[in-house]
Every structure is written in C-alpha cells, then in structure tokens.
C-alpha cells in the first residue's frame, strides 16, 4: 500500500545513507591511484597510478606481514573453534553441574575489554617464553575470542532434539562418540559462521599484536600498516594503496559470505 511519494522518499533517505557509507571508501580508492603532488579528493584519478600499489606492497614490506597474519589467523581459528565447540557441548549437557554459572563466566569474555588484563597476560606470556611469538599471540586471541563461538554453539545445541542423544545412548554411544559421529556433523552451518567470525576478528586484531609482538619481522598486517604511516607520513596515495590491500581480502570474503558474517556478528547480541 506504499504510495509512489512514500517510495521516493524512502529511496532518497536510503541513497543518502549509502553515499555517506561509501564516500570514504571511494575517496580511499580514488586517492590511492593519484600522484602525491596533485591529490584532489573530489575527483577521480585522471591517470590511474597502479604503481602505487606495487610500491606500497614493496616498501611497506606487506608480503611477510601478510604471511604472519595468515599464520596467526589459521592457528587462532582452528584452535578457537575446536575448544569452543567442545566446551559448548559440555556446557549444554552439564546443567546438573552448575554449567549455567560456567557459561556466564565464559560470556564475560564478550563484555570485558581484553586490555584490562593485558599487563598480567604480558607477564604470563613472558614466563612461558611465548612473548613475541605467533603462538603466544594466537593463545591470547583464542582466550579473548572464544566467548562468541561458545555462545553461538550453545544456542545451536538447544535446537538439537534430545531424542537424537537418547537414541545414541540406547545404542551404547557415550558422549564423545555421539559428539564426534552425530552432533558435530550437524553443527557445520553454525561452524561455518563461527569460523568466519573468529577469522575476521583475528585478521582485524590490532591491539594484541601491537602489545605482544615487539620485533618488526613478527608484525601482522594491521600493525605493519600502522608503521607505514610513520614512515611515509605525507604520502597519502601510497598509504591508501596499502590500506586498500589490507581491506581487499575482507571485501572479497564479504561479497561471497555476507549472510554468514552478519548472522555471526549480530547473533551474539540478538539472542542475548
């Protein structure tokens, strides 16, 4: 029953919103293709300087940082998903052992800032000789990031009919075999969501690598990109080329699996 007038005004508001969201992105791409001496943020590049990208990649040392980021992401994601799905299954079936209190304890990870424990965590890593290592950084990321997957898995397990487990019990399956053979395969859609969310958070993590990795060759991309700024303070085109390269993998991923990403990131809040 929407009238044409209403439709026009709805689209006008939406288009203004889209412009506000997209202009900074467009400025980044446009400036990244211009020459430093003739930057004009209000116009498109007349003669696109694609060499800014190769230059940024080379002088910003982005390739090794890229490798470091991927390594940390893979370790963090694999381990975080593994321990979260196990813990969530235990919490789901452990009501009789006060698992609700334990869930609340885990969920504090969603609200407390990681930096409020940074100083003692720094010492813990130093004591076990994992300071300035990717494994150490990964452990910190897992610990501060497992609340969300645990929460998503616990909510999912609530929807699994108890008859499945009762039948398994009758057939003589213990909780471990039931979990591995029957339950885990059922979680695959939610596991995909969890993988993507944990991976994005690891990829974008800026604070933890900043604090726990001290040597330049260990840096992950966001911290490496930050160092770029102090190096080439006024070379906006090259800085933006570097920034666009860091954002690119996320943009590509988002184009394909945006539903999973939105569901995973918002799901924690909606059912909370």
């Amino acid at each position: 029953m929407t009238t044409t007038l209403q439709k026009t005004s709805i689209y006008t508001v939406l288009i203004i919103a889209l412009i506000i969201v997209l202009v900074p992105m467009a400025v980044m791409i446009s400036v990244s293709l211009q020459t430093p001496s003739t930057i004009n943020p209000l116009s498109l590049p007349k003669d696109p300087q694609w060499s800014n990208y190769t230059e940024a990649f080379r002088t910003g040392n982005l390739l090794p940082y890229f490798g470091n980021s991927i390594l940390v992401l893979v370790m963090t994601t694999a381990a975080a998903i593994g321990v979260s799905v196990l813990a969530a299954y235990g919490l789901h079936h452990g009501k009789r052992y006060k698992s609700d209190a334990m869930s609340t304890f885990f969920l504090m990870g969603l609200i407390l800032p990681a930096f409020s424990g940074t100083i003692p965590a720094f010492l813990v890593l130093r004591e076990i000789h994992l300071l300035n290592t990717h494994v150490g950084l990964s452990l910190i990321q897992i610990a501060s990031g497992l609340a969300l997957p645990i929460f998503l898995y616990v909510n999912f397990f609530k929807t699994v009919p108890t008859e499945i487990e009762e039948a398994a019990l009758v057939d003589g399956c213990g909780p471990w075999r039931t979990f591995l053979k029957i339950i885990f395969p059922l979680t695959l859609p939610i596991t995909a969501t969890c993988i993507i969310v944990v991976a994005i958070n690891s990829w974008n993590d800026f604070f933890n690598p900043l604090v726990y990795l001290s040597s330049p060759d260990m840096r992950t991309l966001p911290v490496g990109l930050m160092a770029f700024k102090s190096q080439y303070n006024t070379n906006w085109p090259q800085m933006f080329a570097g920034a666009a390269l860091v954002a690119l993998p996320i943009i590509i991923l988002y184009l394909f699996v945006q539903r999973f990403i939105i569901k995973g990131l918002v799901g924690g809040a909606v059912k909370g």
Partner: protein
Amino acid sequence: MKFMNFRNYLLFIAPALLIYLLFFAGPIFSGLYYGFTDWNGFSFKADWVGLENFREAFRDPLLLTALKNMAILSVVVIVLQHSASILLAVLLDQKLKGIVWMRAIIFFPVILNTVVIGYVWSYMYAPMVGFLPKFFAAIGLNGLAQLDWLGNPSLAIYAIALVMVWQYTGYSMMIYLAGLQSVSGEIYEASSIDGAGPWNKFWKVTLPLLIPSVIVNTVLSVIGCMKMFEHVFIMTQGGPANSTQTFGIMIYQYAFKTSQMGYGTAMAMILSVMILVVTFVQMKLLSRLEVAN
C-alpha cells in the same frame, strides 16, 4: 537421562577453560590483587600499597578526561547512531528492490580494519588537504571548511565519535532489524484497520515493541564506547593535549610507556567494574520488562 557424567563434563570444557583462565580471565582477575600494589611489571612480585593507587587515580586529571570522553562518546553515539539505525531498520524492513544489498553495504564498515578506517578518516578530516575541508569549501561553507577536526582539542573527541557512528550504524541497524522481524505482521494490520498512519504506527506500535532491542543495543554501544582504544590510538593517540584520552589509551600508556603497572592495573579494574555494573543494570531492566509483559 544421565548422558554425561562429571568427568566427561570437565573434559569437554577443560581445553577452553584452561586457555580462557590463563590468557584472559586470570589476568583480568589477578588485577584485583595487582591493583593494590606498587607493581613494576618486571616480575610477579609486588608490594601491597592498599588503596593508594585508587586514591591517586581519582585525583588523576587524565581519569577525569577519560570519564568525560566516555560520556561524550556514549551520548553522541546513542543519539546519532541509534536514531539513524532505527530509521534505516524501519525503512529496510520492507519489500523493496535491492534491499539485501543496501543492508549489506550499510553493514560493511563494521568488518573493516580499524587501521584502514583510522587512515581514511584522518584524511577525511585533514586540514586544508582532506576531503571534508575541500568538500565544504567547494560548496561554499567556508566556516566548516576551516575546522581542524582532529587537531582542535575541543573538537577531536566529537570527530572520533562521528567515525564510530559511521562504522557501527550498520551493526545497530541489523540488531533493530532482527527486533522488527520478530514483531508479527498482524499487529500492523490491526493498527492499519484502526486507521493508524505510518507516523502513528511507528510511535505507538513499532517503538514500544522495539524497547528490548533498544536496551540491548544501546548498552552494547555504551560498552563499546567504554572500551574505546583503537580508533583513538590510530587517529590521535589520545591527543591533542590529552583531549581524547580514554581508559584504553591511559592503561596502555601507564603500562607500556611509563611502566606504572600497578597503577595501570588499578585503572583497568575501575573500568572493568564500571562495565560489569552497566551490564548488570541492563540485565535487570530486561528481566523487569519480561515480567511486565
């Protein structure tokens, strides 16, 4: 059905619990001890100084600035981000062409790297050369074109708040959309039959039913503002003249610049307690609402 015994329960949660205790919860709770010491951070040893750190903290002008900025960020974000995101959610909760893509684009900045966002907005705001000064000059708004957004101590925190609004409006919008979708269509039909126009429908039907989403959503935003670190660190490092100090920046500086670990930990405790109180109030409000319904 005794499907899982206590031993198996412990085994299932042990790996997660161990990592969580060692590298997240343990460090935070050990602050309850270290916050009362003169700890220098070079070893686990520290001397008890009682309330000294907290007494000093509440006299620290930086803490006052951080509290003030927390309030400014929260108010700007609640007012701008939440009115914009409720409006967008209502508009995007309809069958229109291209709606899925519009939602996706508005959500996109949420997953963008903070360093990338910090760079882009540093340039948007850059005096003389940046996008906003040039844009305002081009459309004849010379007053706005002269502003040094991030360099002016009384403006910088608002400039940062606007970046947060830009980044997270899509996030709030998605939560409101989920809230709207749980409202049944019958209520709208009934109100249409009663002759309610879109304006009345929004204020009398939609908004009251959205109250639980509004509580969850605003509390999430406030906690986000309380935890603010990355945007400030990348764009202003807490400056100019400490005008954009936040708890995150302060804790980082006390820990890694001036090595006042005990003092920094006391600050972290003050922040954690405030966050827990806000969360607790939210839970109380929500459960009272459920009872009322």
